[in-house]
């Protein structure tokens, strides 16, 4: 993984000093609420429903065990002994004291971490594939490119106060696991006819109140030109993005208003002035960055581990966990493991200090001391020997992180909702928990197969409900909480937006509604067909009819 040098460390240390002074001036009344707000937001500090919330950056979701232990320690010392992993591969503390944040940042800086630009109207943490570097379907490891973007975007002087937040995702594999079509900029690694590697640039995607699938604005951008091109895109957005209405300020609105073609040509014109300038990446820099993401010291195996194959035959529970939570590795004899933070009955994405520390130990014991966070809010050990999987499974079970539900309906993507977030119109965690409890029968859950259930407590869509096969959106109706259900969304390749089924439901109806949707699915399913494929085949009507049918006596 990337290791700071003196320059990186100095920038982060100086940020701590700067933010400490900003906090001091705010508390001394030298900065007004209105002035401090954007400053603290650019450092990930929200004032939430119950307390401040601090969002810590986990660049492209990569962590060392040392860093994770520090995060656990901070949760213990400054918060209520737990933390929450977000859909942007970041980590949130829900109960820090505003006065303590400078000290928290100073502690983070000792392990090369920070909270820079995790919120506010600036370029946010770049997200990527949680299986970067180990995925069997990968064309190019996106991590060096994410780090290049991280450095470029950190305190970018021209883009510190954009019209709105700005999110970039990079995918280097055949299957998009970074949701590039619903980002402000999505970068997809591609190979051109000459066999050269470059980026397909997608702009203007996003969820929230106006969900839009992004448009391709450049079919092939040679890698060396990445930063000058990003500068051009951001400059066009910074100058022409709407600032009169925050709901219309995202780049997606600009791209749509201009049309993608005109937007692309504006960028092209701007880029002509920047192309080949000093921000053009050098081979030395690309090599340097790639040097941080080399393959670890793998043991050479000829094929699958014999014991591992046998263990799956011997234990149905283990086999089920392997089927759901173990991802195919490009290195023979290895596997990438997803630790599920979606134990039934627990808040999705939450982990206690003890669990965090225990996972750090697992990373040290089984995965070269490194781990990743997925945008589905789970943790990944990316380099585990197949021979160690059984032992790892038992240890993960002991800390509650071995629920075999990755990709299944109870692997809910869920924002913190009205229990924590001051933006939310409705709670989301209790709904997720109620649904998990209803579908607690693992055999049934596995039979249902892959279903993305995504839930947001408000239309800001932190829970990505628009791209869930089943999406749930909390809405406010005359001061009470209701839930709008949508169907047919998908993330990844060929991303589509879900369509609303109809009028919203009360909280207590939700498990029943999901059960009826499942009943329609099961009745219409051919063989092992996935939910989304059934939906595409039969359409909305059968689902709609069932969920709104009057109960007959």
């Amino acid at each position, binding site marked *: 993984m990337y290791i700071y040098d003196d320059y990186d460390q100095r920038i982060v240390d*100086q940020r701590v*000093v700067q933010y400490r002074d900003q906090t001091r001036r705010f508390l001394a009344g*030298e900065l007004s609420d209105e002035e401090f707000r954007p400053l603290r937001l650019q450092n990930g500090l929200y004032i939430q429903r119950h307390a401040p919330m601090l969002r810590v950056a986990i660049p492209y979701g990569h962590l060392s065990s040392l860093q994770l232990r520090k995060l656990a320690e901070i949760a213990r010392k400054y918060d209520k002994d737990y933390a929450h992993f977000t859909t942007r591969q970041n980590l949130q503390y829900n109960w820090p004291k505003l006065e303590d944040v400078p000290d928290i940042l100073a502690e983070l800086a000792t392990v090369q971490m920070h909270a820079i630009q995790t919120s506010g109207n600036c370029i946010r943490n770049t997200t990527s594939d949680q299986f970067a570097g180990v995925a069997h379907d990968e064309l190019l490891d996106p991590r060096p490119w994410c780090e290049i973007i991280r450095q470029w975007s950190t305190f970018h*002087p021209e883009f510190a106060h*954009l019209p709105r937040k700005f999110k970039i995702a990079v995918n280097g594999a055949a299957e998009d696991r970074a949701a590039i079509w619903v980002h402000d900029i999505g970068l997809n690694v591609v190979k051109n006819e000459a066999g050269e590697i470059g980026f397909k640039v997608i702009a203007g995607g996003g969820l929230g109140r106006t969900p839009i699938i992004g448009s391709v604005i450049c079919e092939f951008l040679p890698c060396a030109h990445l930063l000058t091109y990003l500068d051009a895109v951001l400059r066009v957005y910074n100058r022409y993005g709407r600032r009169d209405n925050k709901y219309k300020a995202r780049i997606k609105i600009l791209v749509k208003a201009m049309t993608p073609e005109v937007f692309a040509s504006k960028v092209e014109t701007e880029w002509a*002035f920047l192309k080949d300038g000093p921000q053009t990446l050098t081979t030395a820099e690309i090599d340097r960055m790639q040097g941080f993401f080399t393959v670890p010291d793998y043991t050479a195996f000829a094929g699958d581990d014999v014991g591992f194959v046998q263990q799956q035959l011997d234990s149905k529970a283990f086999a089920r966990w392997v089927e759901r939570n173990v991802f195919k590795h490009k290195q023979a004899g290895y596997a990438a493991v997803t630790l599920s933070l979606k134990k039934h009955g627990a808040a999705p994405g939450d982990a206690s200090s003890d669990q965090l520390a225990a996972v750090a130990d697992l990373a040290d014991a089984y995965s070269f001391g490194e781990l990743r966070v997925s945008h589905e809010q789970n943790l990944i050990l990316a380099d585990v020997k197949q021979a160690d999987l059984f032992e790892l499974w038992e240890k993960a079970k002991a800390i509650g992180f071995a629920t075999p539900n990755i990709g299944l309906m109870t692997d809910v993507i869920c924002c913190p909702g009205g229990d924590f977030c001051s933006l939310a119109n409705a709670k989301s965690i209790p709904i997720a928990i109620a649904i998990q409890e209803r579908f607690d029968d693992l055999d049934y859950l596995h039979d249902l197969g892959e279903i993305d259930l995504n839930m947001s407590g408000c239309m800001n869509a932190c829970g990505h409900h628009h791209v869930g096969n089943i999406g749930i959106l909390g809405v406010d109706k005359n001061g009470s909480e209701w839930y709008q259900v949508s169907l047919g969304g998908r993330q990844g390749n060929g991303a589509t937006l879900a369509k609303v089924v109809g009028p919203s439901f009360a909280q207590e109806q939700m498990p029943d509604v999901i059960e009826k949707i499942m009943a329609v699915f099961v009745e219409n399913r051919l063989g092992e067909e996935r939910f989304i494929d059934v939906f595409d085949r039969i359409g909305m009507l059968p689902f709609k009819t069932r969920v709104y049918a009057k109960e007959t006596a």
Partner: protein
Amino acid sequence: MARIIKDAAIVECDAQLLRFSDDGSFAELPANGLVIVPLAQYLAQKAALTSRGDFGVWLAADDEPESLGADAASLALIAVEFPAFTDGRGFSIGRLLRERFGFEGELRAFGDVFKDTIGYLKRCGFNAFVVNSDKNLEDALLGLNDFSEAYQTGFDQPLPLFRRRP
């Protein structure tokens, strides 16, 4: 006399910033003294201003530096208004004036300018700052030194860190 930050020092400044009246009219220029006129007025009155001398031009956040274009190189002072510090359009204007249109004179930021923005402004080519009147000027000056290093190119450092790392 108003005090501003210029070239990292606090200096006196008696420039008069002139605006259009609410009815869209523009008052007579004072006979002498430094005046800073709106971009539109400069474009309309270029010859008269040039013969008068001792003037600068100011741009609003939504003004297009392109409309000044090559003229920028001949001006001694350009000011850019920041209606709110969270309005970052002026950052791009600064860079375009400096890096594309060859402006070498005094580039002055005014409006909602204070300690927490002037570091970014400096990196976008501004060398003079009219700090918001409710803020401490000495304190703001310190904001120029919050960071001793930056990753990206800027007007103050045209080479990105990756070209400077040993």
